[in-house]
């Protein structure tokens, strides 16, 4: 059983990403949406932690939210796949349940 976790707040504002990474089990996925997309960018203090986590979790980020915030898809961490809303739907369907880490 794999869970899709969504993270909607910036990791520099709230600890939701931190908690998410703590409880997410190997094989689960994490999708950054809304202000959560700031956590997906290359060059932040989180890169090491996310890189390590990408060995056991799959990471995704919502493209429309990146673009809204002037964040370039090219500058997203390599281990994070950019998807759109239809991709979001696919992830929800593919995983057994969705956990909104608010």
């Amino acid at each position: 059983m794999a869970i899709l976790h969504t993270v909607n707040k910036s990791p520099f504002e709230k600890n939701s990403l931190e908690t998410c990474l703590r409880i997410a089990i190997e094989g689960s996925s994490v999708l950054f949406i809304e202000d959560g997309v700031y956590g997906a960018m290359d060059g932040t203090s989180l890169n090491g932690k996310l890189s390590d986590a990408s060995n056991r979790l799959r990471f995704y980020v919502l493209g429309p939210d990146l673009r809204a915030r002037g964040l370039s898809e090219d500058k997203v961490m390599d281990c994070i796949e950019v998807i759109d809303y239809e991709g979001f739907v696919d992830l929800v369907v593919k995983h057994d349940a969705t956990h909104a880490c608010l």
Partner: protein
Amino acid sequence: MEDAPEGYEGGVVKKFMYVNRRAPHGTIYAQESLEVVLIGAAFEQDVSIVFLDDGVYQIRKGQDTSAIETKNFTKTFRALEMYDVEKLYVEKESMEARGMTVDDLNVPVEMKTSEEIGRLMEEQDVILSF
């Protein structure tokens, strides 16, 4: 081994997890999430409640809201047992970070590690966050 619950209209029983990560009183999430649990109890589903991060503060003993003039809904956690909602879990890491032990809490809970909470989450059909 308890009897299987009759469940909802013809026996569908799903695993529902309620995830609480916020402190009580500063926002309404804790109170309104408890209201979902109480109403939801009538549907006789397989319910677990998880308290993570500041959510562990929701079930602290000794909360007295008289000076802030709000309803002390936290007393109602003690009624959960009567509604057959007994699977309450707190995350060990969250408790320790806050210098709390189960003796600080007003309801019986099981302490679980982060990984155990994660594994429990994996078993769920519906995960509600507030």
